[in-house]
């Protein structure tokens, strides 16, 4: 729990990693890709405040003790969700596999959720592995990394028949949270690889599932916002949004937050630090202190209220993951506060006949 100015915030960090990118894990002959990947991440890392930067050695692999210090002792996080990403094309044992992330869950079983991972291109064998993992770990969510390289394939779309089949089976297992990486990708080479149309289709077809779009589709925030405003089960994951912009480009950060509040609304935005790309401490403290600038250019964006910050920093994710929130951190029951418009963008779409429920 984080306390500031008499307000208590329950912090759920819905997007974390515990990776191994040391040279001893690089696939022979693909060292340039393995090194290029972690160097690229390190570039993003350096967009945070200088005093929070790690050296490359720690950045390539850190310890369970480091994790405890950065996330729980200093980082104000109450519950963390670790997302699994494999990247075995260039990391021998994988980047941060379920097994690797389980080291954290085993050390802090009350505070850590590890999400599973599947890839429809791995077919029945891949599915059996996922089922076996689920039996062991009782997943509440999956991370799908559609840009992963496997063999000759450079990725897939979540609305392909094989992927829909996996979504259906996932739903049948009672797993309802699907986190998608929709941020920088490189495939397919000749199209706009950041297009998020596939999420739109999947969200329509699986209304009982929640689709959390990590990095809000950056660098295509506009496509993400159009999708999210029309699909009530699509969420904005703030990983990278805060990390790459709040310190490095505060004015851009304000605009991005303004657009998200306008189109998506405070009930469907969730905090993720993307640890270890960045530590949670400065992101949690900075976001709770943050407010929309007073300049004219920001005057028609919604303000960020204390209640909205509580939702974004933890209460929204707690709902998705059925996490119990201490009474002192909860908000008053709905209906007891003034009924304000939380997502003005939806109104505009309804006027134009474009919102969910109106003629599309």
């Amino acid at each position, binding site marked *: 729990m984080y306390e500031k100015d008499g307000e208590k915030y329950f912090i759920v960090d819905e997007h974390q990693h515990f990776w191994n990118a040391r040279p001893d894990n690089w696939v022979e002959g693909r060292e340039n890709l393995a090194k290029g990947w972690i160097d690229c991440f390190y570039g993003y890392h350096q*967009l945070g405040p200088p005093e929070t930067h790690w050296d490359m050695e720690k950045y390539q692999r850190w310890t369970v003790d480091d994790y405890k210090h950065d996330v729980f002792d200093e980082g104000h996080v109450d519950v963390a969700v670790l997302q699994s990403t494999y990247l075995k094309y260039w990391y021998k044992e994988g980047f941060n596999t379920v097994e690797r992330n389980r080291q954290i869950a085993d050390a802090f079983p009350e505070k850590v959720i590890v999400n599973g991972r599947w890839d429809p291109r791995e077919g029945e064998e891949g599915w059996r592995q996922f089922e076996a993992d689920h039996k062991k770990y009782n997943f509440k969510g999956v991370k799908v990394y559609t840009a992963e390289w496997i063999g000759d394939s450079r990725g897939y779309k979540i609305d392909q028949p094989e992927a829909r089949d996996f979504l259906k089976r996932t739903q049948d297992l009672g797993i309802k949270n699907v986190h998608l990486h929709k941020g920088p990708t490189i495939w397919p080479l000749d199209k706009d690889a950041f297009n998020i149309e596939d999420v739109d289709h999947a969200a329509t077809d699986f209304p009982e599932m929640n689709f959390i779009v990590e990095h809000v589709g950056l660098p295509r925030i506009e496509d993400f916002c159009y999708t999210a405003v029309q699909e009530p089960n699509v969420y904005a994951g703030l990983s990278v949004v805060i990390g790459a912009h709040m310190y490095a*480009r505060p004015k851009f950060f304000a605009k991005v937050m303004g657009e998200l509040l306008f189109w998506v609304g405070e009930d469907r935005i969730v905090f993720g630090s993307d640890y270890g790309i960045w530590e949670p401490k400065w992101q949690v403290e900075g976001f709770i202190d943050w407010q929309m600038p007073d300049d004219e250019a920001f005057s028609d964006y919604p303000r960020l209220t204390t209640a909205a910050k509580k939702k974004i920093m933890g209460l929204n994710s707690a709902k998705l993951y059925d996490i119990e929130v201490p009474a002192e951190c909860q908000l008053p029951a709905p209906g007891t506060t003034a009924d304000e418009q939380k997502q003005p963008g939806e109104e505009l779409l309804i006027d134009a006949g474009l919102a969910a429920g109106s003629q599309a």
Partner: protein
Amino acid sequence: MSGVLRDAVWAALDTVLDPELDEPITSLEFVTSCTVSEDPDGSGAVAVVRLRLPTFFCSPNFSWLMVADAHDAVSAVPGITRVDVALEDHFVSEVINQGVAARAGFVAAFPGEAVAELDDLRATFFRKAALAGQERVARPLVNSGMGPDELAALRLGQVPPSQDLDRLRARRAEVGLPCGDDAPLLLHPEGEPVTAAQVPLHLRRARLTGVSIEANGGTCRDLLAKRYAATS
């Protein structure tokens, strides 16, 4: 002689855009070096251009467009008889450089991984830029009190001159949208006019697109600065 020619080559590079960020590769600092020297065989002048990008994994499609456009722009400079343009420090730089130099086309350079050339992709991003540009041009007018009816009826020739207006006209011209004085200021991405009732949503969308382009440009600049901190 090479000073004047070098300036001409630089001016040519100024016209090459990162279509995703809607900015010239020169102001984005993607050009590491640009030199012009006499061709050793005495037949003319050689331009050597080196390019760099913010990350090792920047999208190959946009990377290709920039290298190919730079190659074309520099080749068209009068007096330049040989061109050597190359992208460095990128995971497929060799494939791109060889493909562009051989004028092979994107599909031929990436067999099995690409099935279409990149003209549509480029057009998609010029359309986005043309959408975002409308809001930039309209914003001062809205601030001065112009309402939806007037905005919907407004023609480009009635808008006070500005750099934003010039840029909007240029992006529209690229994708074949009307850009003359009698063209409406507000147009949907595919070219249909915007009605007065649609103006508020249209301007919001245009601004959102602008925020997206701007945020990406900012992040790319920041990543480039970190990546080349030691050398620049």
